């Protein structure tokens, strides 16, 4: 039976998880490990990209603990567990990216354990804009595309890629609008509603996702909620492993409006539309190098992340930053050092809370955030 509202439908899709999403899609599917991937290349080849972003508490770890040690993040283990429990067998393949050392080794473990899947690893350029980086990234995307073409026994045209860019530009633009609304009128939609809408997109076609987002925006526009006495915060650090929805609820209930965050960052990677004209592969490479968001998984010589965070605080009118790295996430944990240093130079309050996708009690976090909020409200 159809769900009552776009948000309820989004929550249903998120709760059902990846195995259900694979079944629901009539087309072949491919799993994308975080953070960013050139979605359009798979989509144009007739393969629906779906988020391979762990499985939270929906799966018990039975086998993966024997492959990855106790000090490795949960997302690596639950993702592998999905495969070992044969919940990915209907997928054509899985793509991993140069985000951290665990992700790159996970790609190898997938390759050995699931020989029938098409496994690829994309090295995304770390050297910022410039002709050499752009040429490199074009050649890398062409290589990845050739792999998918060979798997699917198709030849993809530039027109098809341009059509896929158009398809993905739509939900990305709507998500930018959704976040703009959150910044300007945070009372219109709760953070957990926004989170559900964004997260659901990882299991949907871009067209269906865009439709859902449009419906939700319409609904939010009609709401007349009062603004509460809460502080405006940016949440930073949850760009790969995703927090349980209950944790996002708790942040808001404890007195925060999340005016920006990096949840599901890869699916809303670009600051504006990717060009729909010219060489589409070059357009994707150019957009990655020049018009993408800052991320702890990417070095950008022209935009140091700690400086960009301060700019973002100013631009969104945030009063504080909540660092929320996943347990054992090295890129986020390392970045905390420079973030903290920079925020302290600028007198911007901050707090750090670690999470794990499998966590299910939030009382301690709630207490910490409440105390933090009170210290700001009654300072």
């Amino acid at each position: 039976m159809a769900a009552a509202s776009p948000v309820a439908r989004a929550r249903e899709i998120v709760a059902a998880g990846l195995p259900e999403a694979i079944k629901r899609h009539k087309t072949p599917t491919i799993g994308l490990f975080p953070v960013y991937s050139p979605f359009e290349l798979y989509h144009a080849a007739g393969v629906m990209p779906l988020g391979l972003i762990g499985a939270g508490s929906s799966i018990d770890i039975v086998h993966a603990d024997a492959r990855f040690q106790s000090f490795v993040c949960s997302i690596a283990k639950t993702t592998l567990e999905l495969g070992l429990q044969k919940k990915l067998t209907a997928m054509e393949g899985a793509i991993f990216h140069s985000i951290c050392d665990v992700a790159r080794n996970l790609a190898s473990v997938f390759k050995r354990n699931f020989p029938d899947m098409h496994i690829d690893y994309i090295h995304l350029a770390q050297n910022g804009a410039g002709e050499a980086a752009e040429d490199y990234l074009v050649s890398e995307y062409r290589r990845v595309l050739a792999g998918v073409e060979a798997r699917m026994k198709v030849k993809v045209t530039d027109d098809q890629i341009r059509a896929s860019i158009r398809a993905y530009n739509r939900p990305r633009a709507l998500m930018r609008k959704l976040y703009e609304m959150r910044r300007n009128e945070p009372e219109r939609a709760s953070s957990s509603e926004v989170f559900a809408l964004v997260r659901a997109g990882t299991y949907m076609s871009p067209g269906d996702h865009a439709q859902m987002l449009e419906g939700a925006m319409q609904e939010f526009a009609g709401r007349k909620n009062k603004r509460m006495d809460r502080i405006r915060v940016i949440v930073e650090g949850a760009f790969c492993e995703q927090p349980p929805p209950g944790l996002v609820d708790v942040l808001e209930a404890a007195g925060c409006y999340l005016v920006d965050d990096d949840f599901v960052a890869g699916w809303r990677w670009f600051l504006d539309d990717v060009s729909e004209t010219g060489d589409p592969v070059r357009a994707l490479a150019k957009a990655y190098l020049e018009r993408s968001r800052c991320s702890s998984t990417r070095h950008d010589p022209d935009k140091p992340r700690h400086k960009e965070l301060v700019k973002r605080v100013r631009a969104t009118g945030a009063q504080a930053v909540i660092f929320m790295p996943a347990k054992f996430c090295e890129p986020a944990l390392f970045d905390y050092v420079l973030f903290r240093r920079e925020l302290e130079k600028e007198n911007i309050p901050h707090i750090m809370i670690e999470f794990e996708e499998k966590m299910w009690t939030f009382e301690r976090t709630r207490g910490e955030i409440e105390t933090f909020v009170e210290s700001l409200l009654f300072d």
Partner: protein
Amino acid sequence: MAEYQGIVHTRSREIMSAWYDRLAVAAANNTPSAYLMISGNCVEILRSFDIEPAFPEVNALQLAIRKQSLPLILKAEEMGYSSDNCAYVKADAGYTFDEHGGPSEGKVPIPKLIVCNFVGCNVYIKWFEHCAAFLDVPLVMIDVPFLRTDDRPTAGDLKYVVSQLQRLIQTCEKLTGKKFDIDKLREICAYSARAGRGWARAKALCKNIPTPFDAYFDSINMMGPINVLRGTKDAADFFDAAVKEYEELVAAKQGVIPNEKFRVVIEGPPPYPFYRQFRDLFSAWGAVAVQSTYSTVGGIWEWGFEHDPKHPLESIAELMLVQNLCNRSLLQRYAQIKRYVEEWKADALVIHSVKSCRLFSAGQGDMRDYFSNQLGVPTLLVESDLEDPRYYAQAMMKNRIDAFFESLEHRKLLRKADAK
């Protein structure tokens, strides 16, 4: 316990001390030096401009082996580093980023340039970004695409790396005011090639029974010269002398331990704060490492790679892209170890899993599954750390290693009985 203490050990110390002296001089005179990382590095380019290379990793290693790392790790954790961050970085950060923003003891210069050749290890990007931010020194990022297409880089990878090396050359020209001299680089690459050949020959000699040196614990004496001093005459001469000595030991059938009973391949970095204790646990069983993956983090020379003075930039790019363990996939590491076990006639594989280095350790359970269940190679997996002494438990380590060799001994006896 017996261990090798010949000319290789003393000569390695001498030439590495001379390098430290040069760094101290650079610190005192404010002459150009640059940070670089060990793995798949492009030290030849810096050397062609007389820029002295300094390695934060070597600093971290020295702190650990001298048992000085823990207070510095704790200091770094106060600065905001997590208990789950790589302790190699933390020890160096605690030492280098003091409140005055400079190296604590003035023995290591504040570099004029930070060159991040991160080959595979994403943590290095962070480490060198932090160095650049805390020390306020310009950072040059050499983005080395990970080797993800069988055993060869793509044409795009090679072009990308060479173009970045050319940019590094321009940066060095500006920094030193010297014009790039390709002939000087060729000469340096010729020394690198000679050192690489020597290192490969030394490792090949470990195929002999008994093995003339321990390819895990004694390799550290050669990893400094090959990775830090590569491109110098000193390093090339050092390897010629090492090979001569090892060949003599092989001819005399003199092993590194008196009674070689077990030949093992060791995977993963050593627990530096407990180097001696860890080694003794193996020597006690007559076990010796005949090959190790850790000794190839800087470069893999044993399959025939050498720097090519005729094509210096391309061969430097080749080392960075292909010929070092860090830029290769876990599955390529499985293949490397498999070859070690077969060609070096090893009885077993020992995996030392370190918390700090996920590049090495993440997924080593799968490696154990592959070697143990698929190939039938007896495999032991033990855990500790390469830098943080809090993760090393001697009694537990001893129990695990003793139990493993006991069962290996039993297995050998059964095999002998079956053969009769």
